[in-house]
């Protein structure tokens, strides 16, 4: 490996820098709007949040510049070491952190508080990029995928130990990266199904049907399992008869059962459905052995596994989840309407954004944010301030900045010549996207309330610096894309 001086100034992707700085500036103004009270408009005093954020932003720019001057070789070489250092930091944090609202994720060092979890993302991305850059890495091999997954599952678990479930969930974003690298989509499908089944099962309460309590959610899920079973077979096997048989036994049997239950003797149709799925699965396994088509077995495993998963959801939801988690899920699914309780944040957030209208109330004119109706309004709920004070126009503008940034980063990631660069690039994209998706979604009442910041926008030094390093490293890698090796 040869070290060469790279002309960073000319090779840097200035569009990305411009977009990020624009986002930071918008963020700073929003923090001014969110943290000011009616009397206090002092933005530059270090005692106020805008004043502090100004310092964080300046430091972040300095930090980013420093990072840009460190070569890719350094990151590539020390990726694992950086990763291990941050894992250690995460572990240490669990023990030395003071309890802040139930979470143990902050290290206080004099006047400065740091959140190591914010920096672990960049380390994880580096380590994952380095691992996948190996010549013998095969993304379609389950073992390799599992090993690669360990890189983000370990920090995830550590962060869960810090009671920061929200931040931990961000690491799920790396699954998308692996998918890009060629991991089979079935993992994503399984994940998607898991969420879908969970929501359906919880969301629909039992109704009375033919004098029997009828679990609509369960019925829906089981029906979807039956249909998916048939659908996957359709794509897998050239034998159309097999698919139709499965569909006939499953769905047909269910409909007959439903009619029978309704008109003659009421019984639990869902149980019959489960039995039907078991029967069809058994038939598929039989055919798999007979036709020597191993992949059929996966379908059967998927179907049976889904049913087992479904059975455990109820138990997990009612027995394992904490009451406040249960309430959050219920509120997000619209099962609980409690404006002063768990739904308060989201409700006030919607009111603040909704009251902004097309053009907003004007900078520093937002009543909802100014009068502290929205909690966490300069960190996780910062987007409310944009919605209220800048209205639809301002909100869309900010979303467009993010869209531009993400699309640009995807473009940069795609043009990387190395797996290392590409994986790292996609890690950046996926992390940012996940944050954007959850944060804005929660503010708009679409996704559950998970306390993660809006990148480059929310108040807070750790997250800002974490994202800055994450992005700056990628920009440096991008600078060297054709010059390395």
């Amino acid at each position: 490996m040869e070290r060469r001086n790279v002309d960073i100034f000319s090779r840097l992707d200035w569009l990305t820098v411009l977009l990020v700085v624009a986002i930071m500036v918008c963020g700073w103004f929003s923090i001014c709007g969110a943290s000011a009270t009616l009397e206090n408009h002092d933005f530059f005093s270090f005692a106020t949040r805008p004043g502090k954020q100004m310092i964080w932003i300046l430091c972040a720019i300095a930090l980013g510049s420093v990072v840009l001057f460190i070569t890719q070789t350094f990151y590539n070489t020390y990726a694992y070491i950086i990763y291990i250092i941050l894992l250690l930091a995460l572990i240490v944090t669990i023990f030395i952190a003071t309890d802040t609202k139930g979470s143990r994720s902050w290290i206080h060092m004099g006047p400065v508080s740091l959140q190591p979890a914010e920096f672990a993302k960049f380390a994880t991305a580096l380590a994952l990029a380095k691992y996948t850059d190996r010549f013998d890495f095969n993304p379609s091999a389950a073992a390799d995928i599992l090993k690669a997954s360990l890189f983000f599952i370990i920090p995830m678990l550590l962060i869960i130990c810090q009671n920061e479930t929200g931040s931990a969930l961000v690491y799920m974003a790396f699954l998308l990266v692996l998918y890009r690298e060629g991991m089979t989509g079935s993992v994503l499908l399984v994940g998607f199904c898991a969420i879908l089944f969970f929501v359906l099962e919880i969301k629909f309460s039992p109704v009375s049907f033919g004098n029997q309590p009828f679990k609509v959610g369960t019925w829906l899920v089981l029906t979807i399992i039956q249909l998916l079973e048939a659908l996957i077979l359709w794509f897998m096997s050239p034998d159309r008869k097999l698919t139709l048989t499965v569909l006939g036994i499953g769905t047909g049997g269910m409909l007959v059962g439903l009619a029978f239950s309704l008109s003659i003797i009421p019984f639990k149709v869902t149980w019959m459905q489960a039995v039907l799925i078991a029967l069809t699965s058994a038939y598929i396994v039989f055919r798999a052995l007979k036709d020597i088509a191993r992949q059929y077995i996966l379908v059967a495993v998927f179907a049976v596994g889904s049913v087992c998963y479904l059975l455990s959801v109820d138990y997990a939801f009612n027995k394992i989840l904490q009451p406040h988690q249960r309430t959050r899920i219920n509120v997000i699914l619209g099962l609980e309407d409690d404006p002063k309780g768990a739904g308060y944040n989201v409700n006030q957030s919607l009111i603040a954004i909704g009251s902004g209208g097309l053009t907003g109330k004007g900078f520093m004119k937002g009543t909802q944010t100014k009068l502290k109706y929205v909690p966490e309004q300069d960190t996780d709920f910062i987007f409310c301030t944009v919605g209220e004070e800048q209205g639809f126009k301002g909100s869309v503008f900010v979303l467009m900045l993010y869209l531009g940034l993400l699309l640009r980063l995807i473009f940069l990631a795609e043009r990387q010549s190395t797996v290392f660069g590409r994986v790292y690039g996609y890690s950046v994209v996926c992390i940012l996207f996940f944050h954007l998706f959850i944060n804005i979604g929660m503010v708009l009442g679409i996704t559950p309330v998970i306390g993660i910041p809006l990148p480059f926008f929310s108040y807070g030094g750790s997250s800002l610096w974490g994202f800055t390093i994450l992005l700056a490293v990628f920009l440096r890698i991008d600078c060297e894309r054709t010059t390395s090796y």
Partner: protein
Amino acid sequence: MVTSVVLIYVIRLFQIQILDTRYRNSADNNALYYRTVYPTRGVIYDRNGRMIVSNQPSFDVMVVMRNVKDLDTLSFCRSLDITKDFFDSRMEDIRNRRKNPGYSPYTEQVFLAQMSVSEVSDFRENLYRFKGFSITQRQQRKYSYEAAAHLLGDLGEVSKSEIDNDSWYSQGDVIGKQGVEKYYETQLRGEKGTEILLKDAYGRIQGSYYDGEYDKAAVPGHNLRLGLDIELQMLGEKLMQNKIGSIVAIEPKTGEILCLVSAPSFNPSELSGRRRGEHYQDLAARSDKPLINRTIQGTYPPGSTFKTSQALTFLQEGIIDTKTQYPCNGGFLFRGLRVGCHTHSSPLSLNFAIATSCNGYFCWGYYYMIGAAKYGTPQKALTVWKDYMVDMGFGYTLGVDLPGEARGMIPNSDYYDRHYNGSWNGLTTISNAIGQGEVTLTPLQIANLGATIANRGYYITPHVVRSVEGEEIPDSVYTKHYVNVDKENYEIVVKGMRQSVIDGTCRSANNSNYLVCGKTGTAQNRGADHSVFMGFAPMDDPQIAIAVYVENGGFGAVYGVPIGALMMEQYITGGLSEASKRKVEDYSNRVIDYGEEER
């Protein structure tokens, strides 16, 4: 995928920011606190510009529960002159969200309302010791004279139904409950202003919204000028002390009510302020019912004052003329029916009949009218008679500008047909001729009869309020209601009433300074007779028409005439002679014993 997520979010933003207005309203409800600025209520003056009702500061003791700390309850209670039990229950009521739906521990709540300056002075001195408590100034009515309570009316807290009927009001506002305060509520109340304040998530006030740009100033209520002469009113109330009854005086030319005395009366201040409810209960419980405004709500047999209306009717219908003579043999004696009377020199003519209040004369006149061939049947005759009565303002409300006016009773043919199965005649209903039987009038209607005669044939609807400041007086106020009786016939009756003062039943009403016309009444009822007087003066330029009604006062000449005479003297000469002053003392000290019977 990135694009689609952003797109979904943009759609969602569009939905909640532009399509759905619900959130905008919620935001305003959240953050904007509309504080009502109460207007000053209109002031009320009498006809001579004397202020009778004005406003005075009253004080509400307020509390912010959150700030109450280390309260020395004992000295607190002592400074406000309340008991510990009262303190505890009041604090509990304030915290009870069912009783006090707008409760927030961060905002001011009313602890005690409408305290006078003297009631809060002790408390105010020690205010610094009571953290969380404060005093807000409001307004309540101040009465310069302890008179005219019925006419002026009172203010009270709005009821649920009043709030439902008029969105102007909200919980805790005051509204006119009686009298002028009620009738002229919309003119007196003014317009509320609003101050828009910002409140934060804890309900704490953070400042004004856009520096008060959208605030609305309160518009004070209109002042009222009454036709009332407060001096005359006070004299009337003095004369009616310890008696039950009414005095109504009207300026005939304008229809303005000069005084409206309903006895027993009470001090209007009693129904103002914090102890209103208590006083109201006491007054309502009394057997002599002081809360009733007898001048417009009491319906009485008018007695002989009614004979003037009969004379006018018979003259106009040609039943009698000035030369017609009827016999009086100690009353009306016919076919075994007898309506008693004092023995007058018989036969007698109209002038003398009015002067001496001869029952016999008017009974004959009535009998001949109801039996007159030109009408065909008694029914038709009575209908004609009834139309005259209604024309003179009887049987229906006059439309005075006060709430609760009664209409009295003028029987019609249907009424008698029902009672007598269609078989009746003048004799059956003979009491009508002398203002007895089914006929009842309010004292206001009797006074209005006097005003109509004084005007020789018309009246202007009696009214209490002369003008509303800042408002045009509608022409309808001065509309003359002409009675369908010729002026000459009125002149005949006026002469009779003058005769009555010269040498008839009203002799004691005579005054050497001006010519008085009058008519007594002695209305029979279950107990002692009611003493009634109706008159006006001066005869040729009437300035005052008056009705005096003293329940169970005996002959008209016993109370009615002297009281009426004193009132007219006060109004016309602007004062009383020494002799009259002694008379006032005499009459004001006379007590009529009404016993404990509910009235």
